[in-house]
């Protein structure tokens, strides 16, 4: 009988209580990128649905303004 694969634990704890996600906070947003500058999945970032959406928008805004890289 094949073992069921355990879900990997989130690498970050819940961040919903953090200050508001903002595209100007580049150092904070960098924490939620892979080494190749991809956005972490909700499972790995530990954000709730709404916060993950905000995070996605903020990172994309920062990329557009040249503050963050699209790829590393």
């Amino acid at each position, binding site marked *: 009988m094949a073992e069921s694969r355990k879900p990997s634990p989130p690498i970050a704890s819940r961040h919903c209580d953090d200050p508001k996600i903002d595209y100007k906070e580049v150092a904070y947003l960098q924490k939620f990128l892979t080494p190749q500058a991809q956005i972490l999945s909700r499972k790995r970032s530990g954000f709730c649905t709404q916060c993950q959406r905000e995070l996605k928008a903020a990172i994309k805004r920062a990329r557009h303004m*040249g503050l963050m890289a*699209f790829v590393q």
Partner: protein
Amino acid sequence: MFLLDNQVVRADWRQAKAMVTDLLAKNGAKVLCARRWDERKLAYPIRGRTRGTYLLAYFEITGTSLNGMRRDFELDERVLRYLMLKVDAIPAGEMEKAAEEGADGYVVPPPPTEEATSPERAVFGDLADRPIQENLRRNAPAEAPEGGDGAEAEVPEAAAAEES
């Protein structure tokens, strides 16, 4: 937020700022505050520029005049990128920071020195500061003639060791 060409900013920051605020005012926007956010190295080159200065402005505008304003910023070559967002309220402290910049005594922060930003320095570090001849002398096998002599000198010793 507006990303401005550093050549314009280095020439005169106040003029660069006025360029943006004038464009806003031309399209009927009421500028509440505008300030220099930061000068940064860009994450990727934009129109051949690797550094840029960001201007953060808060303004009120009607939705009907937005498209005309976007067009103006698209056509202006001094504005590399712009980002316009709807906000509920101006964040605390923004007005104070903008007022500080507007005061007479405000000094625009100087740009980073050439040495700190040159790509040669990023790759070679302190080596980039030395004259080329000196670098060549250091990196090339400068001691080659002496080393050659040493190698020749070793042969008799090795031969002597074999003999013994």
